[in-house]
């Protein structure tokens, strides 16, 4: 227990931890403030004006289509070549129906808590996961590279206990930042919706869904924190984790994406990690293959689809944690400290 408390102290004493956490929280705050100032509450006057603008655009569309149809027929009668400007059958030139032009297009941006809050949890989790990864990597990586780990092992020779206690302290620290930040995030966007949008139809089901997305976000933060910690411990340097991520993202993901695209592989995104991260947060990501046609009863062509679910993502994240943390523990136990 003394080691755990000491490691918590060490974590909070590190300037890098403080600055990175502060930076992450400032970015989150900037997102909330930005959303606040780019949205506004819609009143009846603004709604009526939007309706008028929609009407006005509808009338313009009608005028333009009638003019185009007339010119089309005129060109057809004169036998002037249209050079592809007009269709063979001029009657297909029609204006859109009124209901296709929506009034909300002419409304300023407004924050609807029910529809939008879930999406905001993705950048929340991503930013804190990035902070967790870097802080986790630095926490153990700097210890290895400066000799602090060796000093500690002279006091506490049980290597696995030392490494796991460090990880426990790190995860506790990240949780201590993430949970209050999540509460503030919920509160912040509730305030944004109250003053700059709408909190209508926020049922218990909506809250439940938001809470579950939030929990998955917290789990993502903890998973990436663990991976950063384990990679840096494996390489005994912070750069191992950061370099590993750059290698995976640039070579493994960007390069792989180009390769799969050139090979015209179906559902190429299914091979890319960000898809699974997104699926973890949104529960499902539906990939589409536009090079196929699934005909409907109405003669419409629908692309072939493939669902990536949060359950599949959970398997991937679990395997990553077990494999990388397992390797770090094995290396800690077996490798000489020199």
């Amino acid at each position: 227990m003394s080691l755990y408390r000491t490691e918590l102290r060490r974590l909070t004493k590190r300037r890098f931890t403080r600055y990175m956490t502060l930076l992450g929280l400032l970015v989150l705050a900037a997102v909330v403030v930005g959303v606040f100032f780019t949205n506004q509450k819609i009143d009846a006057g603004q709604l009526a004006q939007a309706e008028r603008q929609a009407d006005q655009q509808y009338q313009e569309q009608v005028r333009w289509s009638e003019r185009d149809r007339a010119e089309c027929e005129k060109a057809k009668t004169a036998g002037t070549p249209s050079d592809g400007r007009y269709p063979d059958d001029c009657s297909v030139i029609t204006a859109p129906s009124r209901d296709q032009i929506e009034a909300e297009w002419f409304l300023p941006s407004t924050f609807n808590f029910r529809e939008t809050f879930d999406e905001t949890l993705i950048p929340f989790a991503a930013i804190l996961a990035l902070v967790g990864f870097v802080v986790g990597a630095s926490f153990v990586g700097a210890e290895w590279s400066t000799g602090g780990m060796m000093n500690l092992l002279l006091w506490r020779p049980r290597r696995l206990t030392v490494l796991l206690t460090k990880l426990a302290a790190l995860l506790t620290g990240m949780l201590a930042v993430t949970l209050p930040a999540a509460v503030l995030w919920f509160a912040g966007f509730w305030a944004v919706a109250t003053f700059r949008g709408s909190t209508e139809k926020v049922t218990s089901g909506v809250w439940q869904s938001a809470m579950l997305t939030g929990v998955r976000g917290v789990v993502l933060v903890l998973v990436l924190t663990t991976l950063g910690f384990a990679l840096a411990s494996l390489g005994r340097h912070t750069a191992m984790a950061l370099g590993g991520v750059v290698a995976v993202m640039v070579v493994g993901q960007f390069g792989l994406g180009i390769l799969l695209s050139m090979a015209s592989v179906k559902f190429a995104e299914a091979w890319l990690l960000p898809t699974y991260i997104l699926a973890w947060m949104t529960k499902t990501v539906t990939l589409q293959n536009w090079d196929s046609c699934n005909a409907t009863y109405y003669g419409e062509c629908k692309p072939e689809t493939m669902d990536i679910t949060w359950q599949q993502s959970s398997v991937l994240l679990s395997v990553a944690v077990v494999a990388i943390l397992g390797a770090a523990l094995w290396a800690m136990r077996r490798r000489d400290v020199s």
Partner: protein
Amino acid sequence: MPAVLEIEGLRKTYKNRRRGTRNALDGFDMRVDAGQVHGFLGPNGSGKTTTLRTLLGLIRPDGGRMVLLGQEVPHALPAVAGQVGAIVESPQFFPHFTARDTLSLLAGAGEVPANRVDEVLELVGLRDRAGERVKTYSLGMKQRLAVASALLKKPKLLILDEPANGLDPGGIREMRTLMRNLAESGMTVLLSSHILGEIQLICDSVTIISLGRRVAFGPVDEVLAQHSSGAVRIRLEAVSDLPVATEVLTQAGVRVTGHPDHLMVAGVDKPATVTRLLAERDLYVSELAPIAVDLESVFLELTATAPVPGQHRQVDESMKVGGTGQSGAAGGGWGA
């Protein structure tokens, strides 16, 4: 005296596909008795730091037996670690923490009372600079901090690897006094150093290692005596008498080496024999000086690392016990 540290047949081999196999420790033996200041000497790359790291559980041995404070390690290391203070190689600390923070975190991890931090800071002379970041410290100050960290848990056995490295002359003297005081208070000190004069001054006993094997061990006086040549330098009143004196001593069975202004004789049990032999032939001695051997010359002899003009000795070119073509490795009954 009971042994605080015993090592028998310790082996550590490093295997590398390109560079092949290297025996860092090749059946190394060591014994340190309680309450002593024990010097641990060896050329660069001879296995000193590997021995200390292995003893402290940082490196896995390939064979042999190690006992610390009566318990076999590394198995019982968690039980004895609290009684062993150590610094291994150059002092390494997280550079952005202050000395006080560094020691306070170690004390926390080792369940040492917080007031002990101030005690050791006072002891190593860092009291007034304890609030500064370690990255601003000189090598000597880091060395003091390292010693402070080793003393933090009031160890029964203190292992120090090159503790005087980077210290100014005053600091070296303070360190020497500290070692002595600690030993007098009952602490056993194992001191690895290249400053052989220091070792000779403060150590009760030594172990000399070369290429992973012990080449000499025992009380300092005995090691010196065992490797003393027994040589005596003789000067006469008249330099012109030196050839006659050489003849007289040679006839008496004494090995004599002539020099322009003096003679060196070896194999003489009692210097008085020389004066008597010469006086009988009316040759009068103006100086009769036994040549004292020091630890440095013994070390250089035992490890075969004395510099040779025109040659550049490589790191691993030193004495191996039982090696071919080497002499004096286990002379005088010392050795593996």
